């Protein structure tokens, strides 16, 4: 009845206006509608419309049926998905505490990826931790990238010397750091081989990765970076050189430090040496600790003691009168992996030395387990640290506290006091969630029992986080 030509004519007529171009109704519909029908135009419109509705337009075949991304990792267990969404998605989840980082670390460790259907709901989490969450997460963050802004680094699931230059910056840095522990020279050679062709941000992360297992063998390369065109790279190289005993930079820094130390005698019955820092006039009182740590924290412990012409034990005793200087010593002990000294300093008064160390960006903790055992002594705490500091602790260690430390924490007076006064003082749920992800997995059941009597609004997030980690860790 209605052929293509009639459709076209009628359509043109109604679009232009039938007062301008009359619709040939009778002809188009084969006499079905009389031309003198007062509703002819309306009927024609209705029939034209219905005709259109039954017309199946041929849609062009798809240009691609390839998935958005490929990822060789296994997907998280199904039971973990609702927990991930409730903890980490926009509506209920809180992405400002440390739970997202812990979960990302756990997923990376187990080589698990998020379920692809959950990626839209976990946008903020994926964006913040894509490098840990695998190829699909990285592809998701780049899904709107156009050819004008290509990301030339792709996610490489298994990095080796053949493909490390193609990986994302964070992956490349982690690879170099890892190789430095087993073959420092080879790692440096790889960095040297690509250095000149990399952009400044990449050069910076590669230089910082050389901090692992630093030795005099690295000195020539680092000294060569004094001419690097990026100030950040030059500064990073300078910082590493300052940590190399025997280097001119280290010597200079040591000399400056020694010049700032005042010696005095203390004690009545037994005269002892007392050391004290003398601060520049430009350093305000509230800036002193940070200045001291950043200026002298990287000095080698042995060189420091040698410069003072004291044994390390004597230095420890002598700095006891100056808490900031004592903290500097603790940092040096940490960097030198002298955990026995660190533990002693903590027991003798520097209970919160760990706070300083976790807040400093340029302090690396090489052996988190041993460091924790020395620096974290919860039985000496008079009160629980605020949650933010515990979050930084995890961010520095990137692993839970070892089981013995976790056990001591849950048994500590500070923790028990917080629990017993929870209903009255109403601590933020963030505290319980932070403890839940900070303690060793073997202590979760004990923590569950401790939290069970508390109101759900304090502990729901903590319980969910522990359940999620349990599911991830058994996969």
């Amino acid at each position, binding site marked *: 009845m209605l052929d293509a030509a009639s459709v076209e004519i009628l359509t043109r007529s109604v679009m232009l*206006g039938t*007062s301008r171009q009359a619709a040939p109704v009778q002809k188009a519909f084969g006499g079905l509608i009389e031309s003198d029908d007062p*509703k002819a135009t309306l009927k024609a419109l*209705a029939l034209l419309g219905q005709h259109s509705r039954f017309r199946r337009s041929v849609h062009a075949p798809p240009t691609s049926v390839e998935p*958005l991304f490929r990822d060789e990792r296994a997907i998280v267990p199904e039971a973990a998905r609702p927990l991930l969404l409730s903890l980490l998605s926009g509506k209920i989840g809180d992405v400002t505490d440390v739970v997202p980082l812990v979960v990302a670390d756990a997923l990376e460790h187990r080589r698990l990826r998020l379920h692809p259907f959950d990626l839209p709901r976990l946008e903020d989490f994926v964006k913040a931790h894509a490098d840990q969450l695998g190829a699909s997460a990285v592809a998701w963050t780049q899904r709107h990238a156009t050819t004008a802004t290509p990301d030339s680094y792709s996610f490489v699931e298994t990095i080796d010397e053949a493909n490390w230059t193609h990986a994302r910056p964070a992956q490349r840095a982690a690879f170099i750091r890892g190789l430095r522990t087993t073959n420092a020279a080879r790692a440096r050679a790889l960095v040297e081989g690509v250095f000149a062709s990399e952009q400044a941000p990449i050069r910076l992360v590669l230089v910082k990765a050389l901090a692992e297992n630093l030795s005099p063998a690295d000195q020539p390369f680092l000294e060569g970076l004094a001419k690097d065109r990026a100030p950040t790279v030059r500064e990073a190289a300078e910082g590493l050189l300052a940590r190399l005993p025997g280097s001119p930079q280290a010597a200079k820094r040591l000399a400056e430090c020694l010049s700032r130390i005042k010696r005095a005698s203390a004690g009545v019955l037994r005269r002892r040496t007392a050391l004290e820092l003398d601060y520049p006039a430009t350093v305000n009182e509230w800036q002193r600790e940070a200045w001291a740590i950043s200026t002298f924290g990287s000095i080698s412990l042995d060189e420091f003691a040698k410069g003072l012409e004291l044994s390390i034990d004597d230095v420890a005793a002598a700095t006891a009168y100056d808490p900031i200087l004592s903290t500097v010593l603790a940092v040096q002990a940490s960097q030198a992996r002298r955990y026995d000294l660190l533990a002693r300093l903590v027991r003798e008064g520097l209970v919160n030395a760990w706070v300083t160390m976790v807040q400093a960006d340029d302090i690396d903790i090489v052996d988190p387990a041993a460091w924790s055992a020395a620096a974290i002594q919860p039985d000496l705490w008079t009160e629980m640290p605020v949650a933010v500091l515990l979050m930084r602790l995890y961010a520095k260690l990137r692993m839970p506290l070892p089981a013995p430390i976790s056990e001591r924490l849950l048994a500590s007076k500070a923790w028990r006091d917080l629990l017993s006064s929870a209903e009255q003082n109403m601590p933020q749920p963030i505290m319980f969630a932070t403890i839940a992800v900070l303690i060793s997995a073997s202590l979760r059941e004990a923590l569950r029992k401790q939290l069970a009597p508390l109101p759900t609004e304090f502990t729901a997030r903590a319980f969910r986080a522990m359940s999620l980690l349990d599911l991830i860790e058994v996969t």
Partner: protein
Amino acid sequence: MSLTLAKVEEIAPDQGSLSAARKLLNPRSWPVIAGSEAGLVWGECQGSGSQPYRVVISESDLGYKCTCPSRKFPCKHSLALMWMRAEGRPITTQAPPDWVNDWLARRRGPSARPPASNKAEEKPKASIATALEPESAVVDPKAQARALAQRERNRAEREAAILAGMEELDLWILDQVERGLAGFQTVAREQCGLAARRLVDAKASGLASRVEQLPVALFGLPEALRADFLIEKLGELHLIAEAYRRQAELPEALKADLRLMVGWTMSREDLLGEPQATRVRDRWMVLAATQEIQPDKLRRLETWLARLGDADGPRFAVLMDFVPVSIGAVGKTYSAGETFEAELVFYPSSAPLRAIIAQQFGSVTREGHWRAPPDDVSGALDRYEASLGARPWLGEWPIAIHNGVVARAADGLVLFDSNTALPIRTKEDDALLPLIGVEGIDAFGLWDGRRLDLKFAETPLGRWLPA
């Protein structure tokens, strides 16, 4: 704290609430009722809407929550549940379902009760004894007859008004066509608002709503599709007007459809008593639960169901409820993936789709897997066109495709079955992107003749839902 009848009296906002609660003590009003050992009691109570209301009370602190839109706290449903508990009626003990646990997790202590009124002492005390007194059945035959006659007069007046409104509508459509639809876009909002208001005055509120929503649908389309859309929709309006004038000639089901669409309503009681209404008892799965605010300031809640069993009858159903926007946000009564056994009664129609729950059997679970009927794209469009032929003013219609794949096309995403591609309506939230390339999916969505609004898919990777 143990619930007592005295406590129920004390907590009731007024006598009317207690009287209303008394009528809900019948177990038949509660297709689901259970409790836990921790003093929680919950149930699903069939109200006047298409879906039962979910009610939970906490005996220990008299907390309560109900999904009904009542502004009284506690509502009659909560009071009825407390009343039954206070009387010690036996209740099955079981683990609380997800919606009860969600409520518990969100609670901040005992439920917020309305602040004590300064005039509390002046408020008449509600009394269970008064509520239990039988209502005096006052039957005045003359008054009944007068009321009946008045209803008939009202009905006749409304019919006349609607018919007049249809004539005006035709004139309005003709005006647009004579001026040319090419220029309609620039005046669409103004013109459609005008036409809608006239239809409201003509007491054709359902049709008014359809006209008022036309500009939104129009501007949601790519430019290339708008001309055909206008021709179809304006032509459809005339079709409806003409059908209404000639409704006596229409088959009963189509006539019922037409009247419902124009704005005549059918009460739940009338529908349940309608002998011609299609009734289907089966297991149903919720595939989508949506909310939309209509131009008339009503929030339309749609719950789309798919039949899981082998019973005869429609494969899909939609439950619709309307709640004033002024009440505020309404939580979903059902969510996608939930399944339950129920007898549904469909509103009379030449292509039955809208239904109410006549009776629910057992509780809602999350068990079950939906399988699309073995239709490819072409088969699904065949079914759509059959429904379109039966109901010419069909709006969005549920379709299902078996073993499809979402793929990229030149102008967006399509659902493809290796032969035919259906364009998919894409939204800003990127929820569809992870579905690309996943083969062998069973997809459900609403087809409007141009684009598929994908709502649910069972895939080898699990269930996909829009964000």
